[in-house]
């Protein structure tokens, strides 16, 4: 166990560096241990994942001189899910002179996360964010610029300043290609070795001479040949992204998964705040049962688009029946419900607030689309105000994407949107150094339980992934590795490696031998439906209890009745999906369990029993001001709960208020 964790009566606090918030990170860096250049070459680091977090970490560690092994599922590191991020990345540059500062970015992030994140980590994030923008510009990332040649900004939900940097609607793509280029340079130099079309299937722990278990490698499957391979390293970094695909339908890429996190969890690492998942308010609504994923329409659209539903139920009904067109509804018959309910933030309220407000209107019978599960996002007003060209320059590619999918032109008729699962704040627990509760095992990016508390603000995931990968981990991991320089490279013939591989072999054989009647996808869809209905935007004690029962049933069905064609000795996509689903079943269960434990509403976790009279989330700081850390105890038992106490030394906690 990570020795920074001292648990008493199930509760612990995490040591953070001394000093004022603004001094902590500087203090840490001045006193931490470093590894000298000659020793770096002797140390191997495995980085699993090539998204913003993984690619930036692998590149930076390679530049420092470590010997890096970098893994990804896709055929190229450039295809990691980060590529799909549209809207932008935050930093407190205050280029717009609108009153931004590191403290304000920190405060907005803490408040946006509904006071469920660790202050010192969040401050550090806000502090290094400015360096990210400098770094990316130096790499040649073509951020949007003003006519004077300086960088442009836009505003995003949950903030009153314009601090978001963007590259058209393709910010994630450009940032990832920047990190990928830095990574490619290291591959060329030989400091990073890439393993693409590889999937990590377990982390390997080996006891050191003092009996302390340390992460010393992974087992990965070569997805082309089907072969299982063993890899040693002095430290392992998990940068495998979020687990939103537990819902089957999400905005995540098809291969996004929660497996690496579950593997770490099963080896003893804490899984923290699994129930904190984010529902994004602006996605293209579901259209059919064959649907494979949901497409996000960037939140930046809420800058200029106005969200509404009809004021009159009969109009909503006529719209659903196709008897009325949205453009035929007069302005005075439109209910701009976000502007009505939240005058100070209007259409730019945080995501959880916007999502629930949409659900509330649809539940009340004002929803549109033939399903009644959609609201309008209208650009008519922006086009009147700014002209079509300006709107096209800002959102052209998003409009094109919408039109290709829905077959309607958003310049002429309002878009239809509905909330969908998008991001997971929960994940592998980490301390200030981004080290998990297992020594030598680190987690960065969306895979960790992150700096976003119970809710992430827009444009802050890209910021966090790159902060972790470029500027935090390359420092903190050295504080660990400095003590490992005497450790020789271990043989992968050690019994720990052999056993880990054998366990996976057995699991795969068992799966292939079931030869039941159900396809992997059909079971995954069933799980997704349970998650959406019971562990989605609004949860209750009853719905969560039901979810626990249903997920157990689906798990049983999976292990008894799944059918996987083919064998394990070659490429087998159905087998890959089955292995991921096996882990999603565990993630889903943990989410429901955690949601049931947390008898409050906060951020992305909304329990219907806990709301104000106006329907806003009601936190219970007296009882739940902690990060819920779940530890695995075997197949037949529920995991054990440990609580990381969150103390707020520098911020006063208030009920979030976006009204005035």
């Amino acid at each position, binding site marked *: 166990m990570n020795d920074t964790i001292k648990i008493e009566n199930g509760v612990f606090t995490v040591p953070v560096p001394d000093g004022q918030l603004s001094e902590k990170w500087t203090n840490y860096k001045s006193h931490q241990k470093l590894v000298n250049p000659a020793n770096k070459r002797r140390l191997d680091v495995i980085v699993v994942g090539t998204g913003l977090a993984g690619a*930036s970490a692998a*590149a*930076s560690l390679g*530049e420092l001189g470590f010997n890096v092994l970098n893994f990804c599922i*896709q*055929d*190229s590191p*450039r*295809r990691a*899910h980060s*590529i*799909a991020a549209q809207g932008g990345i935050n930093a407190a540059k205050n*280029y717009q002179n609108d009153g931004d500062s590191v403290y304000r970015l920190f405060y907005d992030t803490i408040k946006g996360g509904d006071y469920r994140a660790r202050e010192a980590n969040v401050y550090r994030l806000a502090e290094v964010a400015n360096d990210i*923008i*400098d*770094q*990316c*510009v*130096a790499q*040649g990332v*073509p*951020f*949007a*610029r*003003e006519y004077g*040649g*300086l*960088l442009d900004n836009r505003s995003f939900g949950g903030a009153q300043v314009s601090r978001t940097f963007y*590259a*058209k609607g393709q910010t994630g*793509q*450009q940032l990832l290609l920047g990190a990928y280029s*830095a990574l490619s*340079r290291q*591959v*060329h130099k030989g400091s990073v070795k890439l393993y*693409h079309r590889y999937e990590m299937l377990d982390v390997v722990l080996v006891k050191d001479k003092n009996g302390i278990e340390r992460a010393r490698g992974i087992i990965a499957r070569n997805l*082309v040949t089907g072969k299982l391979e063993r890899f040693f390293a002095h430290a392992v970094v998990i940068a495998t992204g979020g687990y939103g695909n537990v819902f089957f339908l999400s905005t995540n*890429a*098809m*291969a996004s998964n929660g497996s690496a996190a579950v593997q770490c969890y099963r080896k003893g690492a804490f899984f923290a705040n699994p129930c904190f998942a984010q529902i994004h308010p602006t996605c293209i609504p579901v*259209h*059919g049962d*064959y*649907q494979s994923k949901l*497409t996000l329409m960037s939140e930046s659209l809420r800058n200029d688009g106005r969200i509404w539903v009809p004021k009159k139920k009969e109009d909503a009904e006529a719209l659903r029946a196709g008897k009325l067109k949205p453009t035929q509804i007069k302005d005075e018959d439109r209910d701009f419900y976000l502007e009505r309910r939240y005058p100070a933030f209007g259409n730019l309220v945080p995501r959880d607030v916007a999502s629930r407000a949409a659900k509330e209107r649809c539940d009340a019978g004002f929803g549109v689309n033939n399903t009644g599960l959609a609201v309008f996002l209208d650009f008519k007003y922006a086009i009147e105000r700014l002209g079509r060209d300006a709107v096209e320059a800002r959102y052209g590619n998003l409009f*094109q*994407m919408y039109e*290709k999918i829905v*077959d309607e032109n958003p310049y002429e008729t309002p878009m239809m949107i509905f909330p969908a699962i998008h991001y997971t704040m929960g994940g592998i627990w980490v301390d200030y150094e981004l080290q998990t509760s297992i020594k030598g095992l680190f987690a960065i990016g969306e895979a960790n339980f992150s700096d976003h508390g119970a809710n992430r603000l827009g444009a802050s995931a890209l910021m966090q992934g790159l902060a972790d990968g*470029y*500027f935090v981990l*390359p420092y903190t991991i050295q504080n660990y590795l400095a003590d490992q320089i005497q450790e020789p490279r271990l043989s992968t013939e050690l019994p720990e490696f052999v056993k880990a591989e054998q366990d996976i072999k057995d699991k795969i054989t068992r799966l292939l031998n079931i030869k039941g009647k159900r*396809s992997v*996808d059909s079971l995954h869809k069933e799980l997704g439906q349970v998650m959406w209905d019971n562990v989605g935007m609004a949860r209750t004690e009853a719905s969560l209890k039901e979810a626990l029962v249903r997920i157990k049933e689906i798990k049983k069905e999976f292990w008894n009745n799944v*059918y996987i*064609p083919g064998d394990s000795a*070659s*490429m087998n*996509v159905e087998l890959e999906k089955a292995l991921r689903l096996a882990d999603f079943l565990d993630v889903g269960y943990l989410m429901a369990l955690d949601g049931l434990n947390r008898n409050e509403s906060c951020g992305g976790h909304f329990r219907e029993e806990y709301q104000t009279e106006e329907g806003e989330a009601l936190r219970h700081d007296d009882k739940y001001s902690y990060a819920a850390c779940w530890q695995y105890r075997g197949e037949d038992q529920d995991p054990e709960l440990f609580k990381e106490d969150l103390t707020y030394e520098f911020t006063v906690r208030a009920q979030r208020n976006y009204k005035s």
Partner: protein
Amino acid sequence: MEKSINIKVKVWRQAGPKVKGMFETYELNNISTDASFLEMIDILNEQLVKEHKEPVAFDHDCREGICGMCSLYINGHPHGPDQEVTTCQLHMRKFHDGQVITIEPWRSRAFPIIKDLMVDRNAYDKIIQAGGYVSVNTGGIPDANAIPIPKPKADEAMDAASCIGCGACAAACKNGSAMLFVAAKVSQLALLPQGQVERAARAKAMVAKMDELGFGNCTNTGACAAECPKSVSLIHIARLNREYLGAKFKD
């Protein structure tokens, strides 16, 4: 408006890189025209799994036109008949009832087939590794606004940088040339002040790598730009040619 169509798909099946492949034809009924092309293949695969047959292997991930993972030659066109979309953004409303749709993998010497419709595009990564970057380490960088960049230049660099590395350009080219892909990266960095220092070396290294990996020569047929899902323009190839000649001239 949504409707359903019945179609036949003629799909290239090949168990592995070294074995012989062939077309198999499958019938699919009641496919919604609102379904995406890849959702249609999902339905086919679900059907195959039910019949205890091997599903069709194909590459895909984001399913929203940005990761560059999906491919497919559909009725003779990379990424299918629609303009400015990737295969994952193509919808069944572009096809009609009773149509026979032929689906093949990218066919290009530098992209060997792995299985069925899946090919190995690692060659594109290798070209980038040869020099498709600005050589800066993490940290110690001047303020992002220290160097103003004229908006038109930044915008043009962004257009070039939109390339998703899908490989349709090389697959569409009768010579199997990767020029459009290489040009997009060289052009992006040549347009920006950050890219100036290594400008000549970059063009030479990337072109040399492209030749080494077995991509063909560019004879300006323009097939690449016509099929590119991101509308990367031939202007960038012209710029690459200037960059390359300029670099050679300096030698």
